[in-house]
């Protein structure tokens, strides 16, 4: 008898708040409107108070905590993995879980706000291209077949490293080996030649073909593979002298042929045969620039177009700028080239005796001050040199 009474008390204590929350919340908030389709488990169980406070809260929607802390109270595994992940998707890094997910219910899997294709393209607009021959998962909008949504080991957020991702669907490796004239397909870098989203021709090959490859003259290059960059300079002799500058990009030994760090030897999506768009390609080595961008309030509008200001092969200026710290800017900022704070050879920075240039005061890679100034333009920047004012 005593045990039964005790059980009843416990049950009523446990069920009280939950049933109460269910009843109280849904008296005003329509259950049908809120819990339609795939429902977030706490919402399905009516555990509104897991996320919301009933009376007052310092956070919007009467939440008990802000996102992502609130989400991570249950999704602990994700939180732990994010701590160790080398690459985190932008919205995840900002804790903006609700940019992609609904809180209560959704018609989509994983409580996504929209179907993956629409959702991804709402930010990644440049990827929304209609191809004559699209890759099947891309055509079906299955972005998550290949990409991770939260974190990854690689910059492209691919689910698996290198070609192993491709081979998870394209399993006929014997045929692939025969087509590519190799013994083992594992060493192939599929993305070097194939556009994983789509292309104009069969096999999703990238559009621009290196002439020896297009003409089937494989031995033009393959008989000289050990020659390194010399192999390339044989046909591109003018490029050799591009590296005769104080700073150059020739990182001999980084790969057997250093040119292939940036350039694709067979086909590419651009006429320079770059392996990727400069903003992504450059960041493979210059990751610090992306960090600076993320931490800066003001960024040069052409930040993503690295080659608008930097030379890719060699330059006599620091940062491999395409000209000195004035010439590189004046190319676009013509007015400032004529009317500005005195700059040039005869105007010296009192701190180091060097000629004052645009980049003495501006840092286009990103700062926290208007006009990409290195310090506040209100006073502190000027006072660096004009001490008596």
């Amino acid at each position, binding site marked *: 008898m005593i045990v039964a009474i005790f059980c009843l008390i416990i049950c009523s204590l446990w069920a009280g708040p939950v049933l109460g929350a269910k009843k109280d919340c849904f008296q005003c908030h329509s259950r049908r409107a809120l819990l339609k389709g795939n429902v977030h488990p706490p919402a399905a169980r009516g555990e509104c108070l897991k996320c919301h406070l009933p009376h007052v809260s310092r956070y919007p929607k009467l939440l008990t905590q802000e996102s992502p802390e609130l989400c991570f109270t249950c999704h602990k595994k994700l939180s732990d993995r994010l701590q160790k992940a080398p690459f985190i998707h932008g919205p995840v890094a900002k804790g903006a879980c609700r940019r992609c997910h609904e809180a209560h219910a959704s018609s989509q899997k994983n409580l996504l706000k929209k179907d993956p294709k629409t959702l991804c393209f709402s930010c990644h607009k440049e990827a929304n291209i209609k191809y004559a021959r699209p890759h099947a998962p891309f055509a079906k909008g299955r972005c998550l077949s290949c990409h991770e949504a939260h974190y990854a080991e690689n910059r492209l957020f691919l689910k698996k490293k290198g070609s192993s991702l491709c081979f998870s669907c394209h399993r006929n490796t014997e045929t692939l080996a025969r087509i590519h004239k190799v013994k083992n397909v594992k060493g192939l870098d599929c993305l070097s030649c194939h556009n994983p989203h789509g292309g104009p021709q069969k096999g999703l090959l990238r559009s621009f073909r290196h002439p020896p490859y297009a003409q089937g003259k494989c031995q033009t290059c393959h008989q000289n593979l050990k020659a390194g960059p*010399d192999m390339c300079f044989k046909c591109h002799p003018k490029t050799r002298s591009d590296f005769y500058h*104080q700073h150059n990009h020739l990182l*001999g030994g980084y790969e057997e042929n250093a040119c292939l760090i940036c350039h694709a030897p067979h086909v590419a999506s651009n006429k320079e045969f770059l392996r990727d768009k400069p903003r992504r390609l450059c960041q493979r080595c210059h990751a610090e620039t992306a960090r600076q961008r993320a931490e800066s309030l003001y960024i040069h509008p052409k930040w993503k177009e690295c080659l608008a200001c930097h030379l890719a092969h060699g330059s*006599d200026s620091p940062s491999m700028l395409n000209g000195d710290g004035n010439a590189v800017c004046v190319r676009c900022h013509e007015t400032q080239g004529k009317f500005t704070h005195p700059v040039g050879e005869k105007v*010296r920075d009192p*701190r*180091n*005796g060097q000629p004052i240039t645009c980049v003495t005061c501006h840092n286009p890679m990103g700062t926290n001050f208007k006009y990409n100034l290195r310090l506040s333009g209100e006073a502190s920047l000027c006072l*660096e040199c004009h001490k008596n004012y």
Partner: protein
Amino acid sequence: MLRMPQKLLIFIFILSLLCLSIHLSWASSLKLTVSISKGPEGKNLYQPLGMFFDPYNQRFYVADTGNNRLLSFSLNGTPLKSFDAGGQLKGPYSLVRDSKGKIWVVERPFNSLTEIDLKAHRFERHQLSCAGHPVLVDRIALWQDYLLVLDRASGMVLLYDKDLSCVKSLRPDIEDFKGFFDFKVKNDRLWGLENLTGRILALDLKSGKILDMIRPKFLVSLPVSFELDNRGNFYLLDRYQKVVLVFDKSGRLKHRLFKKGYLPGELNYPWQLLLLQGKLLVLDEGNGRIDIWGH
């Protein structure tokens, strides 16, 4: 009253504590002793890129690249001489002075190793090759009677004899070698800084065998030069972060030295480190300056 052995023990204990504190704090207690920004005639340095210390005359030499000249300084930073080979020298990048007083300079615009013999009034540009391949001449150093040349095209260090014949190429025998960006010669060992990774390898100059490998246990952005002291510490110059990172033989970070800026002692676009006679020399291209740090 303490007995004699006890006193000795206490003395040894204090002495070892003292030694330990000196050992640990040498790098962190560095002070800026001299900041060199001008040559002997008072002209500012402009984008200097090369430094060399000559133990025979106790002078250090600077390739003042942007001004197309070479400068010499005493170890206390006093400017001594300026030399531009009668206006012939263009974009000197790296230099050494051999035991016979010949100056070897890398002139990047010509991709040449230029021989300057002041006594014989000789100025000759040499185009180097090794095993049939043209060499993109980068930093140079001396070892015994050999001239060591870093080839940026292959990432290897090449040994040239007096006649500029390539006698040997040094490449660590490891699969994941990424090429050298900077190198130093110390006690018959070649120490090389690997491209981008920050890994430092030591090779026996005679056999080419790997003797040591140090991998920093922290993130480096753009390592461009390094030094090592006789306490087993490594100094890694990160051009992007504008700092010198000091780490021990196990790769553990011990100190972060200096900060970015324009004033003496601060770094803008640092390019090269040189450690000599207890002094750390930092060549800063962006600030057109050599900062000498010591105690």
